[in-house]
């Protein structure tokens, strides 16, 4: 990855607004995701972070504002359009079909068909090729599952989420959005999924991680986008801010002044406190 492309966000939003009747869910929100990073998006319940993520992934259409993917403006009308543009989403509630095998789940909606008329006319599936590709994908992400024809329900919770992550990583060409990927998992399994998310980033896909779990965020995020009252109030680095400070900004206990970074905390002179949107990943 050249450093030149790092200057330009892979995904950028400016001035997003979404109103539902009298409620303003997104109130002029900005957003930046850079190449090679895991950006955690945090915010209290009702802060509007999921509304913003929905706008970025095509699940809702914002009333105002622009979204740029790789420097080009995009207007997604559905999640399918976002997916076609190279944005994949992993959902918290394990969006896999438990009775079906791993290969089928990985290729659901994008099945590989046999060559020739068997595929084009009979729409016959190429089971072998899909299993082979699934195996390659799982190996690449070091998910230790032996048989791709195993039903997903026979896997542990962490492995199941691994299948969902592998599916997103396999198909995403630009970035992956992970919506609370560890919310349904135990401690050990969460750890496995966090490792997996790092591996996805190291393999070249930037990741947006939505999470309520501060330790998880601080463990793997490169930058933290803090959302409050419908907009981004700060972007900080886990190196320069403590969990306590971040929660303070998130709940409004600490006013993080975007114009005068560092004011809310005297010791804070780190780069993590530069104004949101201008800060570059390390």
């Amino acid at each position, binding site marked *: 990855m050249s450093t030149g492309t790092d200057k330009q966000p892979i995904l950028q939003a400016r001035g997003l607004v979404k109103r539902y009747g009298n409620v303003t869910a997104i109130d002029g929100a900005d957003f930046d995701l850079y190449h090679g990073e895991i950006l955690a998006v945090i915010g209290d319940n009702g802060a509007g972070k999921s509304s913003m993520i929905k706008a970025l992934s095509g699940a809702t259409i914002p009333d105002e504002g622009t979204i740029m993917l790789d420097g080009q403006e995009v207007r997604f009308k559905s*999640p399918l359009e976002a*997916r076609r543009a190279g944005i994949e989403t992993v959902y918290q509630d394990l*969006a896999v079909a438990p009775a*079906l095998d791993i290969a089928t789940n990985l290729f659901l*909606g994008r099945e590989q068909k046999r060559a020739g008329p068997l595929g084009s006319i009979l729409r016959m599936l190429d089971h072998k090729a899909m299993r082979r590709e699934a195996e390659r994908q799982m190996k690449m992400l070091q998910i230790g599952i032996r048989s791709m024809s195993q*039903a997903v329900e*026979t896997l542990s919770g962490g492995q199941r989420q691994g299948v969902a992550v592998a599916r997103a990583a396999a*198909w995403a060409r630009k970035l992956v959005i992970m919506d609370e990927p560890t919310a349904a998992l135990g401690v050990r399994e969460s750890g*496995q999924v966090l490792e997996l998310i790092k591996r996805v980033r190291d393999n070249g896909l930037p990741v947006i991680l939505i999470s309520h779990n501060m330790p998880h965020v601080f463990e793997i995020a490169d930058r933290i986008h803090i959302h409050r009252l419908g907009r981004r109030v700060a972007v900080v680095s886990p190196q320069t801010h403590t969990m306590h400070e971040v929660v303070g900004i998130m709940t409004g206990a600490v006013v993080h002044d975007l114009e005068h970074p560092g004011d809310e905390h005297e010791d804070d002179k780190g780069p993590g406190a530069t104004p949101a949107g201008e800060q570059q990943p390390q």
Partner: protein
Amino acid sequence: MSDPQTQPSGQVATAGGPSEPPASTKRGRPKVSGDRIAQLGPLIALIVACIFFATQSDRFLTLGNFSLILQQVMVIGTLAVGQTLIILTAGIDLSCGTVMAFGSIVMTKLAVISGVPPVLAILIGIGACAAFGFINGALVTGLSLPPFIVTLGTFNIAYALTHIYSEDETISGLPSVMTALGTSFRIGGTAFTYGTLVTLALFAGVWFMLSQTTWGRRLFALGDNPEATRLMGIPVKKQLLMVYVVAGVIYGIAALLLVGRLNVGDPNAGLTDNLDAITAVVLGGTSLFGGRGTIIGTLIGALIVGVLRDGLVLMGVQSIYQVLITGILVIVAVSVDQLARKRI
């Protein structure tokens, strides 16, 4: 930029020395899925039933009796094929029997009374069944109504229309094309009907569709987890509607088989066939909760229903007791299904 429809883009696999796999392989052998039990159970039940009846009646284990069972299973089995498709989507179709009866009356009355060419009349009859499938599917997908209620309604509508259109008359004097599937051929002195072949071909065709095609895999997926299937960009409602229409066409084929077997158009046929078809599907190990099941299981389930009916007749058991036993069987099969799922 690779075409998303053909190949995962697969970002470059540069990362990672061989670190500990996150999802541990240290677990022992994979848990035996409830499906395994569900797959073997029906076959064992069929064999046990056969052994039991063989000890009760000398006539049970004869080729002639086997042929008779197949003929009886033909109509129920065909209905059960359509029913399997719908139950796999976590739906149910109570209307299958009366829709079939309606189709059989439409094709026979058109041909005999209205003088429509028989082949055309057959196609219109099958089309009438497909139309009922479309109505069921449209109400289930369009208005999100529960399939149980929708098909309970169309069960009655089809029943009423059958009697209104036929004016309660049995239609006889059918053209030979219509009864062709009821005629038989001989293998070693035993007669088998052509209709049996049609039923078996239908099972084979649906097996292929379910296990080898995109359509089939997606049908399982939408029955298993409709939300996940939708999120993967599959047009769930369109596919669900298609399933009901395809099932309707299959009921239409069942109507033709019924006409061939009875040699008349009978407005009172098919009234209890819905329960027999559902019994066959459930006995065959297909889960009423959707997403799990096999078409081969349904074939075995239909054979169990046929063997039970036939065996009980040979034992001289009154027909009302057969109904009693079928009712008990359904409940046992559904309970087994439920318990098997809970263990997972």
